[in-house]
């Protein structure tokens, strides 16, 4: 509480009014620095919630970077477990790290996952002049000479971007995954510049990261990791239709503290559903390369549980975690 009042004052908003009335502006924690996906989630969802009247004050966005979201997770679990005015941005990275025990022992059941309202499909891209045309070419090249295709991605080694090509290779029958070269750089755009510059041969990342590079023809996306081709990007084949049954996307959603009441949880789920149904969100998704993917409430919790189990099993199998 003290923390919230402090921040309210810091932001120069009307602290006096906050204390006089009972209505407190909701806060959205983006567990990363401004500019990334979590920040986008908080700012877009917060803005739309206010615009469509789901909340009566603008949602305040707090950036709490640290430990790949672990710091914010720990803060929510340990210090703000019953704060019902708090939402936190989450994505596949959250569940990946929880599954790989990268949050210092904290587990997925220590918070409640409200829902996901969009997915950023995974992609594999190469430079426009690359001899690699299909996923098949890529897998063959790696089978012939594992070091010949180096990947660049926005996550650290063992992160979700690293797992994507490994999942494809595993599907293609290549199992010596420690031989595959991967460098983690500062975000998808950086990974693309390294790939276009010829320092790495392929980029692994999300659709949103490649959208602006597609139009000017520097890169070619050889596969999108979704069930169906993504609307608006119909020319990009899925991995599935190329014979690699890999579906991996970075969903965008929220979690809330564990200790809030069921009524409050349902209220947040309802608000999130309203955002998902809004035209503003549909436009934001289209502009940022997100594909529709709405799972809200209890349905989503079971989806998250499934994800955590799957990734934990896979990471162990791939040798990324013990």
């Amino acid at each position, binding site marked *: 509480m003290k923390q919230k009042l402090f921040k309210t004052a810091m932001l120069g908003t009307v602290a006096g009014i906050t204390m006089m009335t009972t209505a407190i502006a909701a806060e959205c924690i983006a567990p990363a620095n401004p*500019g990334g996906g979590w920040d986008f989630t908080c700012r877009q969802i917060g803005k739309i919630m206010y615009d469509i009247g789901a909340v009566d004050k603008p949602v305040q966005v707090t950036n709490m*970077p640290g430990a790949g979201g672990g710091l914010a997770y720990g803060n929510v679990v340990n210090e703000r477990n019953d704060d019902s005015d708090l939402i936190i941005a989450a994505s596949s990275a959250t569940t990946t790290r929880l599954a790989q025990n990268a949050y210092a022992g904290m587990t997925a059941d220590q918070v409640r996952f409200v829902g996901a309202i969009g997915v950023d499909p995974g992609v594999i891209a190469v430079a426009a002049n690359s001899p690699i045309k299909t996923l098949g070419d890529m897998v063959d090249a790696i089978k012939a000479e594992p070091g010949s295709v*180096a990947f660049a991605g926005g996550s650290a080694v063992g992160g979700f971007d690293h797992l994507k090509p490994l999942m494809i290779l595993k599907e293609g029958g290549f199992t010596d995954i420690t031989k595959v070269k991967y460098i983690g750089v500062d975000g998808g755009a950086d990974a*693309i510049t390294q790939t276009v510059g010829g*320092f790495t041969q392929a980029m692994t990342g999300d659709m949103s990261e490649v959208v*602006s590079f597609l139009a000017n023809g520097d890169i070619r996306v050889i596969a999108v990791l979704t069930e169906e081709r993504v609307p608006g990007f119909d020319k990009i084949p899925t991995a599935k239709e190329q014979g690699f049954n890999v579906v991996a996307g970075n969903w965008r959603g929220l979690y809330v503290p564990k200790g809030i009441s069921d009524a409050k949880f349902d209220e947040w789920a309802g608000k999130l559903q309203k955002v998902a149904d809004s035209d503003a969100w549909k436009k934001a998704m289209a502009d940022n390369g997100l594909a529709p993917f709405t799972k809200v409430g209890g349905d989503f919790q079971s989806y998250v549980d499934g994800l955590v189990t799957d990734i934990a099993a896979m990471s162990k199998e791939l040798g990324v975690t013990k």
Partner: protein
Amino acid sequence: MDILANLAIGFGVALSPYTLFLAVCGCFLGTIIGALPGLGPSNGVAILIPITFTLGLDATSALVLMTSVYYGAMYGGRISSILLNIPGDEPALMTTLDGYPMAKQGRAGDALVLSGVASFVGAFLATIGLMLLAPTLARVAFLFGPAEYFALYLLAFCTLGGMASNNQAKAALAACIGLGIAMIGVDSSSGLPRMTGGSLHLYDGVDFLVAIVGLFAIAELFFFIESHGKGSSIGVILDKVKIPWKEIFSTRWTMLRASGVGFIAGILPGAGASLGSFLAYMTEKSIAGEKGGFGTGVAKGVVAPEAGNNAAAGGALVPMLTLGVPGSGTTAVLLALLMTLNITPGPTLFTERPEVVWGLIASLLIANVVLLLMNVPMVKIFVRVLTVPAWILLPGVTMVSFVGIYSLTGSYFDLLMMVGFGILGYFLRKLDVPTVPVILGILLGGNMEDALRRAMTLSDGDVTYLFSSPISIGLWVAAIAGFVAPMFLRSILKKPQAVTD
């Protein structure tokens, strides 16, 4: 001409009374934010973003406001560097080296005017550069792979020895402390935490803002307490502000060169304004030689880093707008703002949303003129903020430091760490070990290590990969020359003066 026509569109968007008013507000706020130690441009812009939503600003107005704050903060950072010897933000670090000695000689006004003019020149040239060359320059980023980045950072460190001290060994020791601190955190090449002691707070390493504020502001506080307020560096008196035309004229080439160096450094993703001001200062120092008296309070030493960091601020916009890769922390925040406004920066932005790009460029030009007016004739207003008596100012600085650092992560852990750095800074200064290399180590060490690790991953540990391109070879040669040359020159030339107290 295309550019003129485009610029006309831009000014058409940016030149309305309302946007002009926003530009003035933004510049004023930005300068204050920059001047206050601890509150740098990136948290300044981040804090103000919610205001653009509550005011219901459209895309252009929001951009005008935020870029004015951004440029304003780059101007403002120098004020506390010069008057308090505490950099207002990280790029203003180098300005302390000559700015503060100059202020101590009673020439604070000259230093402020000179640096203001230099800031204007740097920012103005960078904006022109952005306008003319952005689409072409964006390609430069494609030439820099891990090997080239490593060589670039190596160059920065090799020229570091003897920079802030007359004792090379102490400067090297300080740099090593910084590099050591930079190793704390999750190692991005293996994903495993190093030297974190199991604490989640250390997983992302030590934030350099925490280190800067601790080493400068909090250490200053300890000195203040020790001396009971006497003999502290706080409280440089500013008399009359005159415009030193002669010095402005005599430093014109320095301004131009520093702007060029800064602009290039700004374009490189991840290098940012700090490297820009650092390289600009080192270039000028080596051109001037030992006779130049860098570090003792010379005009060129004030002009170079300021032109450099403001040019880098403009340069950093190039990769952000054209590639969507932010060149600095603040441009990362601006990138977030653009995305929230449903504008996706990238290679197609210049053709698809010309009104946004050119509106932004026009507003940068406007902000720059407003800032020159604000920072030269009206500099006294800002100085008044900082020239209140030390017993009022210092608690204020301390409060702002704590608030600023707390706002970074919202965790008290950083506050404790900041105090820890304050204690470290106190002892380092007692031992006459310069603190600037410590911060540069923290600032650049992680990037340098990442670049090396990536290079080694790609080449299967083949060391020759580091010398595999003309660019990297050129940088290596410069780095080795920068490291070796001073050793031979030292015996011939007089030792530089210490700038540490």
